[in-house]
């Protein structure tokens, strides 16, 4: 007689290489304070620095926008620009929004800035983003 040897089933379904590729992405660097604008990384953005703030100005037809300071962890803050309804601003030349942010215009904000106080306004075809600096005692 030959006993049945039915093998054990179960276990986690494995990932195929094709699904692996979706999980291993090229991602941009992490910094303590970073500003990300909805433009390709090569776009012309005017960067103005004064003792009180950094200001960024670029051509943009996004309509109403707002700036969000996302706290990734305590001590790590990323500023992103969203539409008033919370949706993503379309990036020129980019067919599909890549959640990783790779290839977007980014600016590493110096330690003396206050990203949580960021403001953004879209006016006259221009996006204007202002990030205040921490007021020094000397002022």
């Amino acid at each position, binding site marked *: 007689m*030959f*006993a*049945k*040897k*039915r*093998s054990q*089933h*179960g*276990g*986690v*379904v*494995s*990932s*195929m*290489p*094709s*699904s*692996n*590729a979706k*999980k*291993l992405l*090229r*991602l*941009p*660097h*992490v*910094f*303590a304070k970073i500003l990300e604008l909805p433009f390709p*990384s090569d776009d*012309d953005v*005017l*960067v*103005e*620095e*004064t003792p009180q703030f950094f*200001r960024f*100005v670029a051509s943009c037809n996004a309509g109403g926008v707002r700036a969000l300071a*996302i706290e*990734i*962890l305590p*001590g*790590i803050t*990323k500023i992103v620009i969203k539409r008033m309804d919370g949706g993503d601003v379309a990036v020129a030349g980019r067919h599909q929004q890549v*959640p990783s942010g790779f290839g977007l215009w*980014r*600016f*590493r*904000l*110096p330690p003396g800035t206050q990203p949580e106080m960021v403001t953004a306004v879209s006016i006259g075809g221009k996006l*204007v983003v202002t990030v205040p600096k921490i007021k020094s005692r000397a002022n």
Partner: protein
Amino acid sequence: MGNCNACVRVDDVADSNRGKKNKKTKPNPYAEEEIRSGVPIRVLKDVTSRSLIGDKYVIGRELGRGEFGITYLCTDRETKQELACKSISKRKLRTAIDVEDVRREVAIMSTLPEHANVVKLKATYEDEENVHLVMELCAGGELFDRIVARGHYSERAAANVARTIAEVVRMCHANGVMHRDLKPENFLFANKKENSVLKAIDFGLSVFFKPGERFSEIVGSPYYMAPEVLKRNYGPEVDVWSAGVILYILLCGVPPFWAEDERGVALAILRGVIDFKREPWPQISDSAKSLVRQMLEHDPKKRLTAEQVLEHSWLQNAKKASNVPLGDIVRTRLRQFSLMNRLKKRALRVIAEHLSVEEVEIIKDMFTLMDTNKDGKVTYEELKVGLRKVGSQLAEPEIKMLMEVADVDGNGVLDYGEFVAVTIHLQRMENDEHFRKAFMYFDKDGSGYIELGELEKALTDESGDTDTAVLNDIMREVDTDRDGRISYEEFVAMMKTGTDWRKASRQYSRERFKSLSINLMKDGSLQLHDDISGQAVVV
């Protein structure tokens, strides 16, 4: 600074396409103060030469681009040597920190001793618009791309890569340099060969350190950052953590700390739970897992140093490690199938006919999915498209091999029986009940043996005419006790020939089959009932 890839080949860029962008700055109506003057910044302090890069090098086609630079092929005018030139636009150097990073990158690359696994910086130039770093050319592509293409590495191949990375870390630390941005995108192969030398290419976030010095600046890349970087108190041990993440990825294809967004990744890193349950980890040696665990030790004081990594037994004994990436199991199985005698192939078809409804349903649906013109046969093109549809990663040579070995009658297409036979073989049977039924199919008179006449009859049914020599060959091969007939024991032994695979492959095959099944369901091709879809359905 950033991801500068010296080797991804893109179409040639004509010189005129790299003309200057002469956009003048428009007056800013919102300025409260005068805009800072447009005088170009000086990045490199001690430029050794006043000459321009074009004086010595011919700048050629674009090889790739990263976050901060574009890399071009360049040729030495005198020696004709081909090199890579990473050009960093000053427009990208948006803060003093960025400028300082480039200065430090040049200083570090100039300071590190020559090493086979670190790309060599040959010269630096600066003009009004760019900083140019001329480096040796690495033409073999990124480690990142090879990982994605392969899915994951065999243990032996992974050990070779890990040794190189650990050696780079050891050498950096011995020279007072912390890399801070180790990741597969920052390693290039020198050439296209499988065994090419691997080189570290980017020191844009690196920093000099003294023993015992602590750092608090948050820099790095998601997936690869050490938990103590996120806690803003770290030293050079962070590089060993990053190397451990890379090793985990080499062995299984996905990062150990993964989530949908940056915050999720950071939290996963801080939590530090390493998944060794997912495929293919159960098939990976305990020694490899031991090394990964010790490199991803949460407490930097207890984490292995780069030297200790190099001394670990798994790296020391790399030549003994398995050199069969699990994806190769399919290829090996196909080779086995082609060597089978025709009785065994016929038996597999008989077994297919006796599979339960549930067991055969998925195979049948796969066949139907691939048979796009519904003529009851699968051509090579249909097979190729169908395999892609179910998410298979078989390469073209493997698909051709599959077609050749499965097509038993050699007519150039797979009929349903042939398709099922090879599918069952790839799944590696475990159920002896199937053997019994198949045996009884051939043993027409129920004598308990397959006689020559019965064998002839069974194989004639299939091929139309049977060569006596073929029958005698089969009998000689299977009838091990030479009594002129095939007993049940001999039959089972034949069916199990080539089954001496290690246990791991059996489990992997089942998982792969289930993955194919899951993909079919996602594809919408399968109409399984709820009570079936939750079950494993392998033979």
